């Protein structure tokens, strides 16, 4: 029941996307059509989709690499006073993204980096990295350490330990944190606009239609949700997500 309540509202988006005319008091659309699709896929939407995908994948990857050692230290509780580190890590999440975008733009322009893909990745990293560390650390703990110890005693080289023991054991959390990282970057409007310098990004193309043109907005929203729902479903199907 609750599960239905959580998922059903989103179905309205599908109907809205293919309804050329749907005004009150009609419960079903007065007219179905493809106007939304035609408009949503004209202009720079395809390029925006590509840019956003590239930036989101790159951001999630970089975040995973940077977060891995930190998550190990925190996950294995090796620190005597973890609270300050946590607060430091979480700080970007506590600040409106709009403020970060405004604050970073000027530096990136000065460095001549604005509008480049690396600049967008770096900007998104500000929000993605904390999420990735926070999710990733739950994959490390005494159980994994014990497994690795067994492998070490049995003479596995560090590389093989990582490949055969650590990665498989941590896979679910790695998957989950990569997903979260991808999503946070994928849907970020503030920094994409501020640092993109006019480069088309999906949220930037979508936002003007929200409100102004519900049908086009719903169509772009479906495009927006596709990779997210796809990855979520695939990951859960593989039974590897801590869902």
């Amino acid at each position, binding site marked *: 029941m609750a599960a239905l309540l959580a998922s059903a509202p*989103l179905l309205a988006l599908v109907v809205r996307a293919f309804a050329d005319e749907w005004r009150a008091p009609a419960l079903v659309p007065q007219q179905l059509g493809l106007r939304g699709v035609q408009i949503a896929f004209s202009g720079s939407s395809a390029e925006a989709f590509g840019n956003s995908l590239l930036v989101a994948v790159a951001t999630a990857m970089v975040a995973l690499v940077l977060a891995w050692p930190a998550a190990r230290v925190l996950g294995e509780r090796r620190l005597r006073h973890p609270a300050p580190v946590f607060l430091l890590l979480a700080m970007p999440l506590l600040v409106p993204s709009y403020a970060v975008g405004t604050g970073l733009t000027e530096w990136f322009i000065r460095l001549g980096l604005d509008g480049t893909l690396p600049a967008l990745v770096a900007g998104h990293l500000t929000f993605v990295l904390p999420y990735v560390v926070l999710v990733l650390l739950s994959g490390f703990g005494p159980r994994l350490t014990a497994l690795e110890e067994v492998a070490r005693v049995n003479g596995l080289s560090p590389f093989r330990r990582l490949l055969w023991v650590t990665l498989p054991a941590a896979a679910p959390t790695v998957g989950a944190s990569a997903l979260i990282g991808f999503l946070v970057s994928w849907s970020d409007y503030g920094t994409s606009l501020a640092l993109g310098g006019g480069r088309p990004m999906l949220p930037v193309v979508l936002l003007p239609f929200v409100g102004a043109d519900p049908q086009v907005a719903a169509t772009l929203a479906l495009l927006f949700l596709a990779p997210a729902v796809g990855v979520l479903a695939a990951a859960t199907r593989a039974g590897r997500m801590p869902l």
Partner: protein
Amino acid sequence: MTGTRWRAGARWRAGARDAALLAPSLAALALLFGGAIIGAARVSLVPLGQGPTLEAWRDLFDDPLFADAVLFTVRTALLSTALAALVALGLALAVRRRGALVRILLALPVPVPHLLVATVAVVWLAPGGLADRALGGLPVTPVRDPAGMGIVLVYVYKEAPFLLLLVLAALGRGHQESDEAAAALGLTPFQRLRWVTWPTVRSPLVVGSIVVLAFALGAFEVPLAVGPSNPPTIAEYAREATQGDLVSGQSTAAAALLLSAVASIALAAIAVRAARDPQGG
């Protein structure tokens, strides 16, 4: 003697190694985040084409609308977070032994951006929306409700599943074993809830709630779509400022956002303290 010294040395080395492992993340964040904050502070203090001035900050504190905005923002954010945490906890207890399908359906709102959730809320709940059409009238009108009911509703729908995921991750096999052991020892369900389950979920719930609270304090998408025209939230107030006077508006907006950031960080510090160990005991 030498043993102690050796251990101290080892501990120091371990500490240094841990610090080195933390360094990449913390350095990246310090650079990006620190840069952003310094940049925003500069914008608030040095309007375009002028010397340093506190004018933007003075304007902010003189504006009765900003005081309204702060009160309203804090109220809706606290209410949203508390309700989302309660719902998440209830759902977690209800579905912890359910299969994957139920969990996927429940998790569906997590990957959906806030803006889209707010849009969907308008499609369903606005006057003239689907619920209105189906029921032939709405008993309550959450969208644009002057008390901010719409904002709270959207945040609960969006954030409760996020907290649920964190809580369910904590309620893994380890917890199940302890819970069964406690049952075998004859503890009542309530006692098990109080002494076994609560300590397990407290920390992820607190950490997650901080993130939710901070987001609700700083975001403008949801209030823009379903919040009342008055009062605005702090982030909306900042956005409106940039739409007014081009130069001074940018400074006022930066000041408002910085203030909300400081408030969030202070709240988080208090919460982390209250939770003692943020990773759970």
